[in-house]
């Protein structure tokens, strides 16, 4: 998850709180936070998307339409509106931090911890359930599982729950092998 800078913390918190309250009021918090989380990861991994949404030369309306075109049919209207709201507010650069804060807030509201899981391939629902249970067993807390498909890990899984990192990826093993060599 993206770290937030100190100067914009209050503003990021404000946006996260507002998005959280809107999603909760709409009754689609789980779905929206999941979609927002995926969008944040896509935003982080796509330089083209970042440039498009943070380019001040592009009018806000045009940036909003980019978001709407991108998420049309792939996310709920609430998610589209929330992302569009942040983009229109000129806070595109803070999108990942705002969304991460929202996800943490959502997890806290359910007395759970956010578990960001990166895997080279997508997990099945069964695997997600079992992994959620395993992480809950390992950390002693309920976890709100957020899976990111990241080919860079090559194989295996790395799970981050708060400050705890459980790394079972091939990438890490290869890195350790390189260091030993």
């Amino acid at each position: 998850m993206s770290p937030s800078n100190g100067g914009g913390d209050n503003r990021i918190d404000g946006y996260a709180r507002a998005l959280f309250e809107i999603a909760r009021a709409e009754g689609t918090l789980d779905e929206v936070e999941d979609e927002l989380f995926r969008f944040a990861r896509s935003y982080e991994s796509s330089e083209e998307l970042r440039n498009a949404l943070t380019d001040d030369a592009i009018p806000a309306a045009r940036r909003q339409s980019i978001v709407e075109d991108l998420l049309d049919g792939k996310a709920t209207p609430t998610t589209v509106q929330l992302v569009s709201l942040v983009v229109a507010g000129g806070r595109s650069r803070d999108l990942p931090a705002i969304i991460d804060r929202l996800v943490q807030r959502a997890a806290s509201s359910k007395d759970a911890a956010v578990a960001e899981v990166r895997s080279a391939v997508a997990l099945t629902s069964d695997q997600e359930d079992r992994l959620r249970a395993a992480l809950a067993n390992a950390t002693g807390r309920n976890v709100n599982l957020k899976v990111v498909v990241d080919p860079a890990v090559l194989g295996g899984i790395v799970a981050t729950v708060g400050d705890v990192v459980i790394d079972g990826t091939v990438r890490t093993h290869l890195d350790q092998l390189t260091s030993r060599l």
Partner: protein
Amino acid sequence: MMSWDAFVAAAGEGEEQIDRTHSWIWPEGYEIWFGGIASVMIFGLLYWKAGPLVKKAMAGRTQRVQDELDAAKQDEDDAVAEAARIRQAKGDIESERTRMLAQADERAAALLTDGRERLDREVDELEAKAVADIASAGSRSSDELRAEIARLAASAAERVVESSLDDATQQRLIEDFIANVGATTPAEQGASS
């Protein structure tokens, strides 16, 4: 030759001329007497009045000549003294030149010695540095070679692993991860995180 009397007689034969003497060369006798006496008086007066002045002038002239002679003598003495001083100075200059030349020789010799010592030191330092550089370059090359081997080995390992990561392997890795995490207690996790 005509005698004096004949001469006087011949002279008396003519008309007496008051503005003429009886002799074509001699004045009248009384004029000689008066003139002689007047001359004696004039000469006496001159001797009496002008003599001291002349003596004084002569004494002054003598004094001036003497002064000039003294000055010339003094100049000669000064010139002799100056010549002696110049000779002395020349001798001093010669000794100073000798001393400076000797000092220059000493300094040149010292500089030469220092230069040789410094060159020797620099040569030694350069040799030591070259030896160290060679050793360092060898070590660095060895390290770089090892790093390159490690990089190539890691790259090869990565390619091998990537080629072996089929779906079944991916699923097995995921299942192993879930199983391992599920078998971990919070205390163990806290200790290993």
